[in-house]
């Protein structure tokens, strides 16, 4: 019995140690220099993946049999649309952490992601319109996929407007966290809209359950562009969090910036 108790105690101590190590990064003073060191690497990875994605998308991937060359908009449209949904879910995750554990850094991460999420939503909508005109004959239709994506843009804009409208940062963080959590219900609506309703927008070419209905090189180009967008988002969010930490007075302007560089 004593052995079992010792083993349990040892396991609990290990788990506590691991949790404590992770929680240490919720400290601004620990997180800031790490973010400064990591951001340039994420920017570099984004550039490399972007170059690879553009090369595969424009030089390797074949012409589409039905749509011709205009289908190549897929290499910016789909990654942007995926990122717009994914970033909102990550924001909701950080918001939940902030509400449960009262970690301010989580709120700041959510806040840092919002502008980039909004930007990817605009890119998804604009590139979708530019793809829709030559293939559907119209820039816009009020179908479920397009409308729910537009609502996502309003959610991002609402999040940023709400944050800017409340002077007291803690109250703003709480209100925004609630908006992010409630708004995340829209993400599955966007994703499944093409199955739940009869839409002009085509169904998913790539899903978790079925094999992709596109050429392997097209899929590779799309995935490379998505990874590039992902790396870009992380890099930008890290730099933006460093700005927020200083704007809210958590860190002094010169803290952690040995060279004074925005990402170093």
């Amino acid at each position: 019995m004593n052995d079992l108790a010792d083993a349990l105690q040892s396991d609990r101590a290990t788990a506590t140690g691991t949790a404590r190590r992770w929680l240490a990064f919720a400290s601004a003073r620990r997180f800031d220099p790490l973010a400064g060191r990591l951001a340039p690497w994420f920017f570099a990875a984004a550039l490399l993946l972007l170059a690879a994605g553009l090369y595969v998308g424009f030089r390797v991937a074949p012409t589409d049999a039905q749509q011709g060359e205009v289908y190549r908009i897929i290499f910016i449209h789909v990654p942007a649309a995926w990122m717009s949904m994914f970033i909102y879910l990550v924001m909701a995750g950080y918001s939940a952490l902030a509400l449960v554990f009262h970690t301010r850094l989580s709120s700041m991460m959510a806040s840092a992601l919002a502008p980039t999420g909004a930007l990817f939503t605009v890119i998804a909508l604009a590139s979708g319109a530019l793809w829709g005109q030559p293939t559907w004959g119209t820039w816009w239709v009020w179908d479920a996929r397009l409308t729910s994506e537009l609502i996502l843009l309003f959610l991002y804009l609402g999040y940023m407007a709400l944050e800017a409208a409340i002077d007291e940062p803690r109250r703003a963080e709480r209100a925004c966290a609630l908006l992010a959590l409630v708004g995340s219900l829209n993400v599955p609506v966007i994703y499944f809209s093409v199955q739940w309703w009869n839409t002009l927008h085509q169904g998913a070419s790539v899903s978790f359950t079925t094999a992709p209905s596109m050429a392997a090189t097209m899929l590779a180009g799309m995935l490379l562009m998505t990874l590039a967008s992902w790396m870009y988002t992380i890099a930008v969010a890290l730099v933006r969090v460093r700005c927020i930490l200083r704007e809210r007075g958590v860190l002094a302007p010169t803290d952690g910036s040995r060279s004074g560089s925005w990402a170093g």
Partner: protein
Amino acid sequence: MGWLTQISSGGHAAYVAAAFGIAFALLGAEILWLRRRWRAVSGGNP
């Protein structure tokens, strides 16, 4: 340059160029804006 001629054929190259152009312009603007924000909060350091 054959691939460029190939991609430009079909009469829809302007749509593809506009889609990528808008995306890169927006992301570039975000980086420039973020750089200015960092300069402002870090006491004018580049």
